[in-house]
């Protein structure tokens, strides 16, 4: 489709009234075209007025939703399990400065690779975010206080920590089936905090790491959980 043909379809697209192949083509175009993106957003705001209704949603529905998201699970045992396993296997602590040059190089290549992919396919916001965070990443790697470590387990996941910020390259995690997701946790004292839900095929993630003594990634049912009862796929201590 030409730009004009796509523009002509934006109204129908905003109302989910195009065929799937047209929708894919439009979505591809929207990545590149802020003007068309703005128009779709405007149409959707307009359509939102049509949906306006004074009535409330069914009262019992919220209880069901709240029941679904309220997943109580043991928190402290997980951290203990992590520590035990680490000591059993290695007889030492989790943290380990890894071969600095190798990991740094691998991560730079990974990030550059993502940028190239970004230019080629102009993927999406995530890629844009990565490109934006790359400045920080490059600086972090070259910073003299930057610390390299690995989360270990089924596979090794490199992490760079610098000035309270961490970059984690999760591409080595195997892609999960539909309906599952990886989730990143940070432990501060006895409390395990969900840092991010990573999706089923994560890449580079950056996050604030201040205050966490330990990082762990678990595998969960999408859309993630408040507290995990699952053993970590990979984990590692921060020094």
């Amino acid at each position, binding site marked *: 489709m030409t730009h004009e043909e796509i523009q002509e379809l934006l109204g129908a697209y905003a109302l989910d009234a195009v065929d799937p192949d047209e929708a894919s083509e439009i979505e591809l175009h929207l990545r590149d075209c802020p003007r068309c993106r703005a128009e779709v957003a*405007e149409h959707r705001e307009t359509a939102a007025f049509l949906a306006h209704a004074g009535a409330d949603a*069914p009262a019992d529905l919220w209880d069901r939703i709240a029941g679904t998201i309220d997943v109580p699970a043991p928190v402290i045992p997980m951290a203990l399990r992590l520590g035990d396993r680490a000591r059993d296997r290695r007889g030492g602590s989790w943290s380990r400065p890894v071969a600095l040059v190798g990991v740094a190089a691998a991560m730079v290549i990974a990030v550059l690779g993502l940028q190239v992919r970004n230019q080629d396919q102009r993927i999406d916001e995530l890629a844009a975010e990565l490109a934006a965070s790359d400045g920080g990443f490059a600086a972090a790697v070259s910073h003299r206080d930057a610390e390299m470590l690995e989360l270990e387990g089924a596979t090794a996941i490199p992490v760079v920590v610098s000035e309270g910020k961490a970059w984690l390259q999760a591409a080595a995690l195997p892609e999960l089936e539909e309906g599952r997701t990886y989730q990143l946790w940070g432990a501060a004292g006895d409390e395990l905090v969900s840092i991010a839900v990573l999706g089923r095929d994560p890449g580079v993630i950056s996050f604030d790491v201040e205050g966490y003594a330990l990082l762990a990634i678990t595998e969960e049912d999408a859309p993630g959980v408040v507290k995990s009862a699952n053993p970590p796929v990979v984990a590692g201590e921060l020094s």
Partner: protein
Amino acid sequence: MTSAPKNQGMRQDDLTLASDAQLVVAIGRWRQEALAEAYRRHAGAVFALASRVLASRNLAEEVVQEVFLRLWDNAERFDPERGSLRSWLLAQTHGRAVDLLRSETARKGREEREHRGRAEAGYDLEHEVWDLTVADQVRDALGALPAEERKAIELAYFKGLTYREVAAALDQPEGTVKSRIRAGLKRLREGLADAGLEVGV
């Protein structure tokens, strides 16, 4: 992410005063009461739209549940600079409802789909519009649209038809229908703005 202290979020009673964008930040920090407040504000519209598109209370409830669970899980996907929380929730609701509708339709087969298309053509749309519990301004702005544009938008938005199906149902060329949907939405937006309802993005 910020490194703000984790235990100094807004108190629960403050959430009713929080903006939608603030609510989403709190939801991103797994604060259930923030999700409850978002639900209080927007679930009525979400449920109304899903009910209307799906014509089934059970399916509509499923969609509401799914949309709010998705917000709980993927709060970071909402970008306040790209539009309001309400339109984001409603766009997801509509997309999901239409998916359900279409898979249902596909299951029932081609014959029935054609039948449905024919049935829509004779449907008293004007009557339906006036049944809607919409704000007066919205009703007025919708009523001020050329009839052909209004019909095309209603069939697409409330009945979940594609523009091709709308064209078949109204026996009009596909190109005309897609232009009418777009032009109608633009006109509607201007009408709403004239009535004091700013459609901001």
